[in-house]
């Protein structure tokens, strides 16, 4: 139906955009394996040791541990809360739902920047700044709104007849959740886990404010500190940057559909 010329033009346009999008990514990958410390691309002398050297110089072992503790705990807790609250709203119904659900939605709409300052002073008063508990609590609390919203939609999509027949068989709400609803809603849970992982792993702002002690900071802050040093070896900086992105990018390669679907539904975290 469409002319050959139109087709060629379309492909050229799309390819140009794709190249434009990929350029910074490929460039940083190239620099990460180049030997020149000023960051000149040199792909004839690949220097894979940059990754190990960057890891050592940036002190990533400690930051990685913090990132893993924070992300692992926060994602687990967020997922449990999302399932429970989504089940409450989507299946059981909640006393005061007319008020409570809009109140929860409020959390999706207001940006975390709006609450971070009082939160910092609260945490400081409670001794929660510079602790894993504090930053994890903050991540979990700000993920509640989206979690409840997301899992509610997933559970509502389950045909009511399925739940009713389980109830006839005498299943209580807890067994129904585990045996009936969760297995059906597994794809939605997976998407939630992926998004939650990405938001927590990628976070910079929350940690910058709530965690000033380097031994509890995640990798994103480690990168910030590394790039702020007086004498920066650009190739090492690039290698460090690549390493931080890696977990999410690898997950994205495997679960592209889930990432895209989740983020297109308008998913944002506080």
């Amino acid at each position, binding site marked *: 139906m*469409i002319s050959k010329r139109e087709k060629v*033009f*379309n492909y050229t346009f*799309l390819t140009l*955009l794709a190249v434009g*999008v990929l350029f910074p*990514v490929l460039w940083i990958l190239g620099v990460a394996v180049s030997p020149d410390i000023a*960051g000149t*691309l040199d792909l004839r002398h690949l220097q894979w040791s940059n990754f190990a050297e960057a890891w050592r110089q940036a002190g990533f072992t400690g930051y990685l541990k913090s990132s893993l503790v924070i992300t692992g705990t926060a994602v687990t807790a967020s997922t449990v*809360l999302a399932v*429970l609250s989504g089940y*409450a709203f989507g*299946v*059981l*119904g*909640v*006393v005061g*739902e007319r008020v*409570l659900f809009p*109140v929860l*939605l*409020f959390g999706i*709409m*207001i940006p975390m*920047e*709006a*609450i*971070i*300052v*009082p*939160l910092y*002073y609260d945490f400081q008063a409670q001794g929660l700044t510079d602790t894993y508990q504090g930053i994890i*609590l903050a991540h*979990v*609390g700000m993920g*509640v*709104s989206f*979690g409840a*919203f997301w899992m509610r*939609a997933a559970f509502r999509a389950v045909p009511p007849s399925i739940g009713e027949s389980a109830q006839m068989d005498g299943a209580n*709400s807890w067994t129904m959740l585990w045996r009936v609803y969760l297995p059906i809603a597994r794809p939605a849970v997976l998407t939630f886990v992926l998004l939650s992982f990405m938001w927590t*792993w*990628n976070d*910079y702002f929350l940690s*910058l404010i709530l965690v000033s002690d380097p031994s509890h900071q995640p990798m*994103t802050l480690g*990168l*910030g500190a590394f790039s702020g040093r007086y004498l920066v070896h*650009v190739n090492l*900086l*690039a290698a460090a*940057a690549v390493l*931080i*992105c890696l977990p999410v990018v690898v997950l*994205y390669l495997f679960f592209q559909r889930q*990432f*895209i679907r989740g983020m*297109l*539904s*308008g998913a944002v975290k506080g």
Partner: protein
Amino acid sequence: MATVKDRSSSRTALPDTGAADRDAPSRPGIRLRSPRRRRRLLGLAYLAPALLIYAYVVLLPAGQGLQLSFYHWDGVTSASWAGLANYTGFLTDATLRQAVTHTLFFILFFSVLPIILGLISAALTARKDVRGAGFYRSVIFLPQVLTPAVVAVVWKQIYAPDGPLNSVLTAVGLGGLARGWLGDFTWALPALGLAGTWAAYGLCMVLFVAGTHTIPGELYDAARMDGAGPVREFFTVTLPGLRGQLAVVLTLTLLGAIRVFDIVWLTTKGGPGTSTITPTVVLYQRAFTNPDVGAACAIGVVLALVSLLVSLVVVKLAEGADR
């Protein structure tokens, strides 16, 4: 703010507990605890842990922020009443006013430009079998999942005086234009803006392309039959068909533009001078570098109000379009 339709339907789907209780026949005057109400109490129990954490981490600070915004407080000594002084800063404080102007500028780069590019890409691929569409989609969406702190570091290097942008310019004979882009009072802001366009474009394109697949093919056929060219086809068929997607993209990108922080903080820290300062950077500085907590909270409250307003207006527009 996800799907608008879902929210409005929730209201109609809410079971009216009162009715169930009233219908309980035999004992007038005694409100039976119907199974439905018991179920809803159980629901509250399931919700309770999430609700408590949410109240402590989100609701409580939101309230405190509102309260603090009416006080002068340095974070240590006792606070003193300020009235609206922290809010009038938006009119009188030069730095803050500049930050607001930059937000408007960023909306152009973070929202308008990616949406236009996304619409063009969607229009070009609509109803045409573009081979390898999946590949383009994954590549173009990639910036969305990259760590913002990393993205900031990457662009900082790209714009560096001896970075690749200047090398390219020199190579094509435009060496005269080469400069340290992020250190330049005029160019730092658009340079950061373009990085934002780069990041947001994928989201817009992928969402719009998905949207074009839901537009009935007959509409295109009818438009062609009427002799519409590609441009008219775009304005009469594609664009109206994408209103829902447009609403989602507008909300996401506008909220993104309002709260820009990571990329500015990690590249220019608002500089040189205050030429790339944003409201969130001012908020951070007021809250932590030289504490004027009330002023920081007032910025937070205004950010929240603007965000709520943007979400609501866009949702209303989309609802209007559905009817």
